[in-house]
Protein backbone atom coordinates (compact mmCIF):
# COMPACT_ATOMS: atom_id res chain seq x y z
CA UNK A 1 0.00 0.00 0.00
CA UNK A 2 1.41 3.41 -0.92
CA UNK A 3 2.48 5.52 2.00
CA UNK A 4 4.04 8.84 2.86
CA UNK A 5 7.56 8.37 4.15
CA UNK A 6 9.49 10.82 6.29
CA UNK A 7 13.15 10.98 7.20
CA UNK A 8 14.75 11.13 9.64
CA UNK A 9 12.45 9.64 12.27
CA UNK A 10 14.26 11.61 14.96
CA UNK A 11 16.50 14.66 14.60
CA UNK A 12 18.38 16.31 17.41
CA UNK A 13 19.85 19.71 16.68
CA UNK A 14 21.41 22.54 18.57
CA UNK A 15 19.56 25.80 18.95
CA UNK A 16 20.37 28.15 16.11
CA UNK A 17 21.15 25.40 13.62
CA UNK A 18 19.24 24.76 10.41
CA UNK A 19 17.39 21.50 9.85
CA UNK A 20 15.78 19.97 6.79
CA UNK A 21 12.98 17.50 7.26
CA UNK A 22 12.31 15.28 4.29
CA UNK A 23 9.15 13.70 2.99
CA UNK A 24 8.33 11.49 0.04
CA UNK A 25 4.61 11.89 -0.67
CA UNK A 26 2.53 9.23 -2.41
CA UNK A 27 3.60 9.31 -6.02
CA UNK A 28 0.44 10.46 -7.82
CA UNK A 29 -0.59 12.98 -5.18
CA UNK A 30 -0.75 16.66 -6.00
CA UNK A 31 -1.31 18.44 -2.68
CA UNK A 32 1.26 18.46 0.07
CA UNK A 33 1.14 19.62 3.66
CA UNK A 34 3.25 20.03 6.74
CA UNK A 35 1.76 19.87 10.21
CA UNK A 36 3.39 19.89 13.60
CA UNK A 37 2.41 18.56 17.00
CA UNK A 38 4.12 19.92 20.07
CA UNK A 39 4.13 17.33 22.84
CA UNK A 40 0.76 17.25 24.56
CA UNK A 41 -0.81 19.70 22.12
CA UNK A 42 -3.00 19.41 19.05
CA UNK A 43 -1.84 18.78 15.53
CA UNK A 44 -1.41 22.20 13.89
CA UNK A 45 -1.37 23.13 10.22
CA UNK A 46 1.81 24.78 8.99
CA UNK A 47 1.64 25.00 5.21
CA UNK A 48 0.03 23.61 2.09
CA UNK A 49 1.76 23.30 -1.27
CA UNK A 50 0.33 22.78 -4.73
CA UNK A 51 1.68 23.22 -8.23
CA UNK A 52 5.12 24.11 -6.91
CA UNK A 53 4.02 26.93 -4.73
CA UNK A 54 2.65 27.59 -1.29
CA UNK A 55 -1.14 27.76 -1.40
CA UNK A 56 -1.71 28.58 2.26
CA UNK A 57 0.35 29.01 5.40
CA UNK A 58 -0.46 29.51 9.05
CA UNK A 59 0.79 32.26 11.31
CA UNK A 60 3.30 29.76 12.68
CA UNK A 61 4.94 29.47 9.27
CA UNK A 62 7.04 32.62 9.40
CA UNK A 63 10.29 33.51 7.64
CA UNK A 64 12.10 30.88 9.68
CA UNK A 65 10.36 28.18 7.66
CA UNK A 66 10.46 27.27 3.99
CA UNK A 67 9.28 24.39 1.86
CA UNK A 68 10.53 23.01 -1.38
CA UNK A 69 9.82 20.24 -3.81
CA UNK A 70 13.29 20.02 -5.31
CA UNK A 71 13.03 17.02 -7.60
CA UNK A 72 9.42 16.06 -8.17
CA UNK A 73 9.40 13.36 -5.50
CA UNK A 74 10.75 14.87 -2.28
CA UNK A 75 8.98 17.55 -0.28
CA UNK A 76 11.13 19.27 2.31
CA UNK A 77 10.60 21.56 5.26
CA UNK A 78 13.55 23.73 6.21
CA UNK A 79 13.72 25.40 9.58
CA UNK A 80 16.40 28.06 9.85
CA UNK A 81 17.94 29.07 13.15
CA UNK A 82 15.98 26.57 15.24
CA UNK A 83 14.59 27.57 18.62
CA UNK A 84 13.80 25.42 21.62
CA UNK A 85 10.08 25.88 20.96
CA UNK A 86 10.47 24.30 17.52
CA UNK A 87 10.79 20.93 19.25
CA UNK A 88 7.81 18.91 18.05
CA UNK A 89 6.66 16.09 15.82
CA UNK A 90 6.47 17.26 12.23
CA UNK A 91 4.08 15.43 9.96
CA UNK A 92 4.03 15.53 6.20
CA UNK A 93 0.77 14.72 4.42
CA UNK A 94 -0.32 14.39 0.82
CA UNK A 95 -3.62 14.30 -0.98
CA UNK A 96 -4.50 13.05 -4.41
CA UNK A 97 -6.64 15.70 -6.06
CA UNK A 98 -9.35 18.29 -5.65
CA UNK A 99 -12.17 15.81 -5.24
CA UNK A 100 -10.41 13.64 -2.72
CA UNK A 101 -10.80 14.54 0.94
CA UNK A 102 -8.37 12.04 2.39
CA UNK A 103 -4.94 13.31 3.36
CA UNK A 104 -2.41 10.59 4.10
CA UNK A 105 0.08 11.33 6.84
CA UNK A 106 3.62 10.16 7.27
CA UNK A 107 4.95 8.70 10.50
CA UNK A 108 6.47 12.00 11.47
CA UNK A 109 9.90 13.36 12.34
CA UNK A 110 10.54 14.07 15.98
CA UNK A 111 12.62 17.24 16.15
CA UNK A 112 14.41 17.95 19.39
CA UNK A 113 16.18 21.29 19.72
CA UNK A 114 18.69 21.43 22.55
Amino acid at each position, binding site marked *: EPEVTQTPSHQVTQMGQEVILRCVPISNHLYFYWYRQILGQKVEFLVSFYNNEISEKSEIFDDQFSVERPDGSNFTLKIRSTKLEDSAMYFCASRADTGN*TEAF*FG*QGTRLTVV
Partner: protein
Amino acid sequence: QKEVEQDPGPLSVPEGAIVSLNCTYSNSAFQYFMWYRQYSRKGPELLMYTYSSGNKEDGRFTAQVDKSSKYISLFIRDSQPSDSATYLCAVPSNDYKLSFGAGTTVTVRA
Protein backbone atom coordinates in the same frame (compact mmCIF):
# COMPACT_ATOMS: atom_id res chain seq x y z
CA GLN B 1 -12.76 31.06 18.98
CA LYS B 2 -11.18 27.70 18.21
CA GLU B 3 -12.46 26.02 15.08
CA VAL B 4 -12.74 22.62 16.70
CA GLU B 5 -13.04 21.74 20.37
CA GLN B 6 -12.55 18.26 21.73
CA ASP B 7 -12.40 16.93 25.26
CA PRO B 8 -8.90 15.44 25.57
CA GLY B 9 -10.03 12.81 28.10
CA PRO B 10 -8.40 10.42 28.74
CA LEU B 11 -11.06 7.76 28.45
CA SER B 12 -10.66 4.24 29.81
CA VAL B 13 -13.25 1.56 29.11
CA PRO B 14 -13.47 -2.22 29.50
CA GLU B 15 -13.29 -4.39 26.41
CA GLY B 16 -16.66 -4.66 24.73
CA ALA B 17 -17.92 -1.29 25.93
CA ILE B 18 -19.22 1.44 23.65
CA VAL B 19 -16.85 4.36 23.30
CA SER B 20 -18.42 7.75 22.68
CA LEU B 21 -16.28 10.65 21.46
CA ASN B 22 -17.46 14.17 20.74
CA CYS B 23 -16.36 17.44 19.24
CA THR B 24 -17.91 20.81 18.61
CA TYR B 25 -17.02 23.17 15.82
CA SER B 26 -17.55 26.86 15.29
CA ASN B 27 -17.96 27.50 11.57
CA SER B 28 -21.34 26.58 10.17
CA ALA B 29 -19.85 26.56 6.66
CA PHE B 30 -17.94 23.34 7.32
CA GLN B 31 -19.30 20.47 5.23
CA TYR B 32 -16.85 17.61 5.79
CA PHE B 33 -16.17 16.15 9.21
CA MET B 34 -13.40 13.69 9.80
CA TRP B 35 -12.16 11.34 12.45
CA TYR B 36 -8.50 10.40 12.52
CA ARG B 37 -6.90 7.76 14.69
CA GLN B 38 -3.36 8.19 15.95
CA TYR B 39 -1.40 5.43 17.59
CA SER B 40 1.49 6.35 19.84
CA ARG B 41 4.43 7.79 17.89
CA LYS B 42 2.61 7.41 14.57
CA GLY B 43 0.99 9.83 12.18
CA PRO B 44 -2.78 10.34 12.10
CA GLU B 45 -4.71 8.01 9.82
CA LEU B 46 -8.17 8.71 8.49
CA LEU B 47 -10.75 6.51 10.15
CA MET B 48 -13.86 7.86 8.47
CA TYR B 49 -15.51 11.03 7.34
CA THR B 50 -19.03 12.31 6.85
CA TYR B 51 -20.43 14.95 4.59
CA SER B 52 -23.05 17.33 5.96
CA SER B 53 -25.45 16.01 8.60
CA GLY B 54 -26.39 12.47 9.40
CA ASN B 55 -24.82 9.16 10.29
CA LYS B 56 -22.21 7.01 8.65
CA GLU B 57 -21.42 3.51 9.74
CA ASP B 58 -18.31 1.47 9.00
CA GLY B 59 -18.12 -1.81 10.84
CA ARG B 60 -17.96 -1.09 14.54
CA PHE B 61 -17.56 2.64 13.98
CA THR B 62 -20.36 5.18 13.57
CA ALA B 63 -19.85 8.87 12.89
CA GLN B 64 -22.64 11.37 13.46
CA VAL B 65 -22.96 15.02 12.56
CA ASP B 66 -25.56 17.39 13.93
CA LYS B 67 -25.10 20.63 12.04
CA SER B 68 -27.85 22.40 13.96
CA SER B 69 -25.81 22.14 17.14
CA LYS B 70 -22.38 21.98 15.43
CA TYR B 71 -21.70 18.70 17.16
CA ILE B 72 -19.86 15.67 15.78
CA SER B 73 -19.60 12.26 17.39
CA LEU B 74 -17.80 8.98 16.93
CA PHE B 75 -19.05 5.77 18.48
CA ILE B 76 -17.04 2.58 18.71
CA ARG B 77 -19.09 -0.52 19.44
CA ASP B 78 -17.69 -3.68 20.97
CA SER B 79 -14.43 -1.91 21.68
CA GLN B 80 -11.21 -3.92 21.50
CA PRO B 81 -7.80 -3.35 23.09
CA SER B 82 -6.52 -2.66 19.58
CA ASP B 83 -8.81 0.39 19.50
CA SER B 84 -6.62 2.00 22.16
CA ALA B 85 -5.35 5.16 20.49
CA THR B 86 -5.89 8.89 20.31
CA TYR B 87 -8.91 9.89 18.25
CA LEU B 88 -8.84 13.26 16.55
CA CYS B 89 -11.77 15.05 15.02
CA ALA B 90 -10.90 17.34 12.14
CA VAL B 91 -12.57 19.68 9.71
CA PRO B 92 -11.07 20.74 6.39
CA SER B 93 -11.32 24.35 5.31
CA ASN B 94 -9.74 26.03 2.31
CA ASP B 95 -7.56 23.72 0.27
CA TYR B 96 -8.42 20.92 2.68
CA LYS B 97 -6.30 22.46 5.39
CA LEU B 98 -7.26 20.40 8.41
CA SER B 99 -8.12 21.91 11.78
CA PHE B 100 -7.80 19.24 14.42
CA GLY B 101 -9.33 18.87 17.82
CA ALA B 102 -7.07 18.22 20.77
CA GLY B 103 -7.60 14.46 20.47
CA THR B 104 -9.12 12.07 23.00
CA THR B 105 -6.88 9.30 24.27
CA VAL B 106 -8.82 6.06 24.60
CA THR B 107 -7.65 2.99 26.47
CA VAL B 108 -9.64 -0.24 26.13
CA ARG B 109 -8.84 -2.56 29.00
CA ALA B 110 -8.74 -6.30 28.27
